[in-house]
């Protein structure tokens, strides 16, 4: 099969410094890269756009030499790199390996930072290539000076002597970038650089990228967010299922046209939601206070609200204003200092404050945590075992979900019901279209989007009365996002009350029937989006007071 015909819309007579020729890479059961060809020109910001599992990261790893391609080749214009850096002799030209690419001046900035947290900024930057005096003593002064100089040259302000662990995520990323500049990297490869950043930090990063381009550096960045390439890239290459499916320029593309290329079909942003009358109160929160473990202050400060049946209640706010603490306290992961929390069932109210997590789950609350790797799943367990995690003490729910009654015996009280596990797994995999070789595949071998589908799927199939969901679609692509949104709406239509937190304001606005705006642990507004108004919303989210707009 011939590769997709790539025209080179990027003007200029320059020759590519990096050419990828028909590269394929296989993993057991997957074609991660399928006959990929592309060219990279010096001095441009190239965005590689694609869904999770499209092969972007694999391609980066092939370029950096971490993976060897199974077929095809990569040619690097060594002369160009050599002319741009004064580093010494290079060896092993035909064999691409991480050390070689590093010496050549290709620097990777990974999504998960490779920093030593308790070290200072300058120590991290010079690590591995320290500036020394007498041959073995670290020259602190010179190191700091060097870091300061890089930071000034490129306009990336940082304090060389602060500890990395004290820095915000955005600044940590800046340290990573300066580290690559310190090592004379000419080509920077950024792997999903905005995944961990707040919108403001992302804007700062884009500014940094533009500055670096002006300083003559070349940048290749991979992302799954549609607006980013439009904003910052010179050229966009779109990948889907291991193939390059197209290439475009930002001024010729739109969100819609990119989305179409990324997922392969026209995206319908319109969600099928009927307007339902607000139902009865199902969860009542009054004067809730949750303490912040580090500062000892109230992370959630006297919060009161009611969640109704048939309602999606979205919490809007800049991350870190108590939203996560609020939802964790509802499930019991955080202790409540004061106030109360109750489930209402007709006439009966059950106070949840002193119930264990298991008891709360038994009151048909479901919880989807913010960080799936940390709280949501067990990477070394199979898909079906991970699904069972949500059902293990709620066997009747499992039977209702699968529509099968289990035979009960004395022994079955103690053993894992393998049949039921299999049926639950089938249910979730089919309904959410999880891409996995089998239900016995280990969770860690699934892509992020599919992991999220498993987690959301197992909670939604439980048909809970209250669903507490934090960042439902973090790090997943549009296709998965669409599916998860549809399912949340479906659940709401069936009578469930959904409490939604997301750092993606778009998501909160599209899904919610009603909004709570949180700032500094307090609820500063409560109402529908029409009642609050877009302008007032953004004003309140950043701590603006009422009436001073």
């Amino acid at each position, binding site marked *: 099969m011939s590769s997709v015909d790539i025209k080179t819309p990027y003007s200029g007579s320059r020759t590519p410094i990096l050419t990828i020729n028909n590269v394929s890479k296989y993993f057991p059961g997957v074609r991660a890269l399928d006959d990929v060809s592309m060219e990279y020109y010096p001095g441009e910001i190239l965005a590689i756009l694609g869904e999770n599992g499209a092969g972007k*990261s694999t391609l980066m790893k092939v370029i950096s030499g971490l993976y060897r391609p199974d077929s095809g080749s990569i040619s690097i214009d060594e002369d160009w790199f050599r002319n741009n850096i004064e580093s010494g002799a290079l060896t092993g030209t035909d064999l691409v390996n991480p050390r070689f690419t590093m010496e050549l001046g290709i620097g990777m900035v990974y999504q998960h930072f490779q920093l030593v947290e308790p070290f200072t900024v300058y120590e991290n930057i010079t690590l591995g290539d320290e500036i020394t005096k007498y041959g073995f003593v670290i020259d602190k002064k010179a190191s700091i000076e060097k870091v300061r100089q890089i930071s000034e040259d490129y306009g990336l302000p940082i304090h060389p002597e602060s500890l990395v662990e004290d820095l915000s995520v955005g600044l940590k990323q800046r340290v990573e970038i300066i580290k690559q500049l310190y090592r004379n990297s000419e080509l920077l490869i950024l792997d*999903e650089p905005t995944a961990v950043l707040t919108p403001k930090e992302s804007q700062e990063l884009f500014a940094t990228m533009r500055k670096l381009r002006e300083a003559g550096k070349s940048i290749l960045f991979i992302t799954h967010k549609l607006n980013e390439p439009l904003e910052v890239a010179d050229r966009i290459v779109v990948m889907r299922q291991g193939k390059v499916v197209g290439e475009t320029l930002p001024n010729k593309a739109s969100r819609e046209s990119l989305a179409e290329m990324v997922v392969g079909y026209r995206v319908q942003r319109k969600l099928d939601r009927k307007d339902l009358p607000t139902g009865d109160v199902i969860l009542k929160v009054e004067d809730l206070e949750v303490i912040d473990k580090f500062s000892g202050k109230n992370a959630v400060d006297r919060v009161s609200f009611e969640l109704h049946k048939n309602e999606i209640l979205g919490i809007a706010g800049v991350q870190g204003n108590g939203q996560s603490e609020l939802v964790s306290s509802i499930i019991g992961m955080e202790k409540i200092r004061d106030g109360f929390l109750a489930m209402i069932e007709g006439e009966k109210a059950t106070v949840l404050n002193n119930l264990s997590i298991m008891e*709360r789950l038994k009151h048909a609350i479901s919880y989807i945590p913010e960080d799936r790797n940390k709280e949501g799943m*067990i990477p070394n367990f199979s898909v079906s075992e991970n699904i069972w995690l949500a059902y293990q003490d709620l066997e009747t729910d499992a039977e209702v979900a699968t529509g099968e009654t289990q035979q009960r015996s004395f022994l079955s009280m103690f053993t894992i019901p393998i049949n039921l596990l299999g049926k639950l797994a089938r249910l979730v995999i089919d309904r959410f279209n999880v891409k996995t070789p089998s239900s016995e595949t280990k969770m860690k071998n*699934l892509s992020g989007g599919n*992991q999220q589908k498993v987690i959301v799927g197992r909670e939604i199939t439980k048909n809970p009365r209250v669903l507490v969901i934090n960042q439902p679609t973090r790090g997943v692509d549009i296709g998965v996002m669409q599916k998860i949104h549809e399912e949340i709406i479906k659940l709401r239509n069936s009578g469930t009350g959904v409490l939604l937190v997301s750092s993606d304001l778009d998501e909160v606005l599209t899904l919610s029937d009603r909004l709570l705006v949180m700032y500094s642990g307090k609820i500063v507004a409560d109402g529908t989006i029409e009642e609050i108004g877009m302008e007032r919303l953004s004003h309140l989210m950043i701590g603006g007071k009422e009436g001073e707009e």
Partner: protein
Amino acid sequence: MSLNIGALAADSRRRRILVLAVSFGLSFLAMIILILVLNILGTSVDIFLVMDKTFFEPLRKPKMVALIFFWTAPLILTGLSVAIAFKAGLFNIGSQGQMMVGGAAAGIFASNIVPKTQALQFMNRPLIMIPATMLVGVLAGIIWGGIPGVLKAKTGAHEVIVTIMMNQIALSFVRYLVVSQTYSPFVDKSTGDAYGQTSAISKSAEIPLINSSFSTFLDWSIVPTILSAIIIWYLVEKTRYGYRLRAVGENISASKSSGINTNFAIISSMMISGGLAGLAGALQVQGNYHKYIFNSEGTLGFDGIAVALVAGNSALWIVISALLFGYLKQGSLNLESSTDISKFLIFTLQSALIIFIAAPLISSKLVSLTEKISRPRNVESEVNGMSQDNGGGTGGEDTEGGEI
């Protein structure tokens, strides 16, 4: 826990056998090189004699085969003890102390408490005494293992530190009980200067030999031992409790948010762990010595760590792993008793084996290499194929990658 012990458990069965075989081969080679180097330096060790006495003679003579099983039994129990705690994410270094406490408690119970108490005479028959003495050992172990469990769950005290200290306390406390002649009523003073043991246990608590003409060592305690291995395997792999234990060991936050009582899992796994070690101690008293002898455990408790490590903490593999260690132990003893070569020579082999297994990359690389040679294209390496893209986050390509 970032310990490497869990690494092997993830391997496939075929691969684990290969890794084990390669590790064994490597350590074997290391030992031969060591002997040769020593010979060059001036010793005169006959390699063939060493090989025969260590590896072949123990398999030729039925009495020695029986001895291999004799050594294997307590290793299975202490190996299980370490493994079950590890399943819950805990590194129990305290099996040694738990075994010691179990043995001492069983010994004191069967030698002093029951025989000297009028009200308990009804118990003094094998049908009651044998299981009762075992139970006393188990209970003592449960207490000794439970304390670090409770401390871990309630205060966050690290189990490694606490169990090390509990070992020390066990050593001193048991020494006080059975060595100190002046204060302790349990010391056997009849043997003159040979203190350090209790008087003989009641005949009814003794576990009989399987066949005294076959072996004067091998007793029926191998039965409860194998039963324990089967029960622990079933518990961990098939039951709801085991599922929770493994979940807690793999990811405590995810377990918590799914409503699992993590404190219960931690405490109970440490109690089971202690109970198994305690049982090992009791069986030694009942089957072998017929009294509790101070420090007769040797290093059986600590060896359990190595047994579990080699078995990748899987209960059924522990039986095989313990057999291997029992075999090496008998070989080393046979070598020492029939030649003037020290058994410590074989200990170097054992230790090298543990290093090769604890550093799975070495043997795993070799296994990959042979696989590559036999199947040159598209090696099924351990690189986790589908997590190549971001968001997966936990891709395991950093270990045991066949390539890079």
